């Protein structure tokens, strides 16, 4: 076999770094962690970092769910409802209905997965736009949360809080779980047949249909897995926060989308950059932490998150064009006609 594919690599370096792939977010995250102690002394001490990591873990798991939906050319606006739903199940079932913790945890993961199934069926079988379907289920889920809780948040079971807040060999359990989820999801998405077929459907429904992939089934599966992931995220969050506000998920919609975009998964579907989404979640959480350390008010965080998202999508759009222009310039002789 010839090895000629190495030849053109250098030219792609910059473009890949900023536009495609996942390299950029690793660098950005490293840079952020290097910069943090310089900008805000003490912000990388053990206490703030250990305080930040569980939130990063929750966001990372939710962001992987969002990544799977974006891979299928969708956008999941039901993240707030899903998280709130998982949260109300894991806290409310033991407290209000006397369920054992393990059963509640199963319910808090399985029921959001079922809600994901509803999303998937609406999108694939009934041809509803993903955006509209998930806006609808989001409202329905919030209503269910409201009904289940009668409007007042419940506290998490003691064992759960204990588990979520304690550490194994110095690493917060929440983080361990997140690392496990990220590793499994990332590996399966890359190397399993199912993962490859999900990619094929995300790249092109038409082409996937032609080669005989059951497109609707795979798309629905993506929504179901996403739902389960939101459930896991909600369980972790509830365990860590102990008594989360009912609609705590509201604050997670934009960050999951931003993490997906930062991670490099294209909004037009295709390859899912699972691990990169998780790294982006860490980046976003640390950025928020840093801003808080610098004394910025909470609403400003929203503005900055929005700005980060816009800047990144802009860069992704502009950099390839610029790189192309730079590379072209010496070649093009008669570009007049292009005007």
């Amino acid at each position, binding site marked *: 076999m010839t090895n000629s594919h190495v030849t053109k690599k250098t030219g792609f370096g910059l473009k890949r770094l900023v536009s495609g792939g996942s390299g950029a977010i690793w660098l950005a995250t490293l840079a952020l962690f290097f910069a943090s102690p310089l900008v805000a002394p003490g912000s990388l001490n053990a206490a703030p970092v250990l305080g930040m990591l569980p939130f990063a873990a929750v966001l990372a798991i939710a962001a992987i769910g969002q990544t799977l939906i974006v891979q299928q050319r969708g956008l999941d606006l039901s993240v707030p409802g899903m998280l709130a739903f998982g949260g109300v199940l894991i806290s409310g079932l033991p407290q209000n209905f006397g369920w054992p913790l393990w059963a509640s945890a199963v319910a808090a993961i399985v029921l959001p997965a079922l809600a994901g199934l509803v999303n998937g069926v609406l999108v694939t079988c009934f041809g509803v736009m993903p955006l509209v379907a998930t806006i609808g289920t989001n409202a329905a889920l919030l209503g269910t949360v409201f009904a289940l809780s009668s409007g007042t948040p419940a506290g998490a079971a003691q064992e759960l809080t204990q588990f979520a807040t304690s550490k194994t060999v110095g690493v917060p359990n929440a983080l361990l779980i997140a690392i496990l989820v990220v590793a499994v999801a990332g590996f399966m998405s890359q190397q399993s047949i199912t993962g490859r077929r999900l990619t094929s459907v995300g790249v092109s429904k038409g082409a996937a249909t032609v080669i005989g992939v059951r497109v609707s089934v795979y798309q629905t599966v993506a929504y179901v897995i996403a739902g389960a992931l939101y459930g896991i995220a909600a369980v972790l969050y509830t365990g860590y926060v102990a008594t989360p506000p009912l609609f705590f998920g509201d604050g997670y919609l934009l960050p999951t*989308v931003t993490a997906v975009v930062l991670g490099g998964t294209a909004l037009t579907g295709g390859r899912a950059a699972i691990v990169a989404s998780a790294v982006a979640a860490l980046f976003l959480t640390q950025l928020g932490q840093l801003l808080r350390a610098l004394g910025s008010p909470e609403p400003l965080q929203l503005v900055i998150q929005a700005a980060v998202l816009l800047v990144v*999508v802009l860069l992704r759009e502009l950099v390839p064009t610029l790189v192309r222009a730079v590379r072209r310039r010496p070649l093009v002789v008669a570009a007049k006609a292009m005007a």
Partner: protein
Amino acid sequence: MTETQHLDPKVPGIVIRDPKARTVALRLTGIVKSFPGVRALKDVSIEITAGEVHALVGENGAGKSTLMAIASGALAPDEGTVEIAGQPLTAASPQAARSLGLGIVRQDPALLPDLTVAENMAIGVGYTPAGRLAKAPAWAQEHLDPWQMGINAAGRVSDLSVEQRFVVEIAKALALKPRVLILDEPTEHLSLEEVQRLFQRVRELVAGSTAVVYISHRIPEVKQIADRVTVLRDGAIRGTFQAESVTEHEIVELVVGRSLDTVFPTKGCVVGSIGDEVRLSISGLAGTHFHDIALDVRAGEIVGLAGVQGNGQTELIRALAGIENASGSMTVGGRPARLGSSAAMADAGVVYVPSDRHGEGLFMPLSVGENISMKTLRKVSSGGLVSDSRIAETAAEQIANLSIKTPSSRTPVASLSGGNQQKVVLARTLLAEPTVLLAEEPTQGVDAGARVDIYRILREAADQGAAVVILSSDGVELEGLCDRVLIMSRGSVIAELDGDDVTEAAIARAALTSTSVRKREEPSTSRGTRFRRWLRGDQSPAAALGVLIAVIAALVGMSNTVYLSPFSLNNLLVMAAPLILIGVAQQVVVMGAGFDLSVGPLMGFLVVSGSFFIINGGNILVGVGLMIGGAVLTGLVNGMLVTRFNLNPIIVTLATALALQGAFLMLRDTPGGSVPVEFSDFVSANIGFVPVGTIVAVLVAVVLEWSLRRSRWGLELRAIGSRADAAERLGIRAGRVRLLSYVLASLLVVPAAVLLLAQIGIGDGRPALPFTLSSVLVVVLAGASIFGGRGSFISIVAAGLLVAQVLGLPAFLGLSGAWGYWLPGIITIGAAVFYAQLRSIRKNS
């Protein structure tokens, strides 16, 4: 004046008559155009003189259409110049070419399906010749009637048949009285009778000294109509000849580039390699656009499907692939196969090579290796896990076997040339060891060299025992490759040719003559269809919603008469006003195929910013001015990011939504700044029990509805929402229209914010947040297709009222707060499902 002349040494005895000193109507000089992976045109120069029919012939992918796209300003050349009627075309702009007198009829008509025929024609001619929009239908009808195709100028284009659409496209081009008319494969969709009518018109035009460029790969027709013929092969001109001085055969050899026997492999029916075993057997197969098809294909046999485009061939081959639904029976390798499921067909051993290589053939962003193995992942994996090294091995094998020219198996398939891409599709197909191989236009957009390889590959697949079915519009290809050819017309097989009878001329004759008797659907005016047409119109949701509102009102009113009192009605209308406005705002964006998630937070931001001045002693005008300014700015930011930088509208507006929310929370963390009573009273005034705000909202909707139908803005907005690519080809400045739609939407949020500010009486943005969901709910209920192009603002009014009614129900009926979420959620989903089903029924009927 000199004429570029090309003499091909391979065709002796052709004398090129020196063209008379006629004026040159279209001159292309030194045109070079490259696409990623292909050099489509290599230094092409051509002159078309006034008063001639100049045929441009060549295989699929020879560069004919690209050349004409450049001539018509739809594509910019990398190098070279275009001159129309002596004037240089300075920019690649369809309007500029049009105004210089160039008309083009494309193979794929640039029509906007959701607009009426008349509206399409008005846009196509740049409005002026059509007069005012209200008069456009009469003007359009005048130009359509000579064709006797039964086209109603006031009907939607989406309701027309393929050939009717084509005639609209021709009529549109002719209405401009062009000096140069380009016809790109004009007879592809037409029956013999219609072809003759077209030729008649072409001769009239030429007599009036119009220059006609006639692109075709149908050589007999070219001989019939053209004065001169230019042959294009692999992006370069191979010669220009007087039509009467060359024979059909000579043209074909020039087009193909060598003698036919070196291009095509020996047929199975000649060497006797066709087996006895029937690999594919269908009987009584029926589906959309075809019926009662019976066919047996044996191992080693290649069967061709031919016919005038749009006679059911495509649907048939796609049904065989399991992609389209069909009924009847089909067996593959002796076992019955389940129709209507491509996965089941794939399992049964049927593989399909689609004609749309970009959309269906390949996974463009993925590598060559991934594409090759995607269909047969199990062969390169163990225990459900894929091995990349085995993918690379398999790919290397296939790359060598099929001589695919690629730097490596990791190269993205998108960077390969058309021919090599098609070989990748075939490699993937062969790996599946097919029992039945279906190929649709297998050599479209493939250069001559790769074409020979592809014919060889297809023949080898047959020799290895597959039953092969090929659909092709290229008669030469069918003649050279197929053992047997079936000709389809009106959805059934009307002729079958085999052995020596498989010739291009025989195929063309059978296809064209049979279709001349095709029946036209006469527009019926019976009540049933008129009702159905109304149902398909834009205003039917409004009526349906109105009925629903009345039913709910009656039901609730029966249990509680207070519900119908003027007081509750007033309440309902007060709630409806901002919903209507915000729904109208969302609808404006959705019509242009956008989306705006920032309307709710923008409303909150405007409420808060206004509340700093709309207070006792404050300057109300400054407050309102600030609100308008904030809205315009938001609209500009959204619109610029979406149109100029081509960002996803959902992401952009999601980000601005959160930014606006953060901004108003920073301005006012807690509610503050109480609104003067006089202001509230003024805004919340009533006429009888009807609030003035609601009247204003309805008026806004009515004005917009009128503009949507009658103004150029409305037309262009719908055009872009309907089919952005076609709209741009027609010269509509899509970016500007869409930018404007975002600004307008944001502006429409201003009155909604004023109403809300007056209602809550204090500067607080939070109550505005749910309005994003409400706006989506209103738009979905109003039946906008959410893909743009359709919809009505009258339906928005009805939907706004219904949403106000539904949102008010929990409080009125004493239901729990959960219903405040459930009702909008369930209704959104229900309405979306309902309309999605309606749409798919419409599409199938």
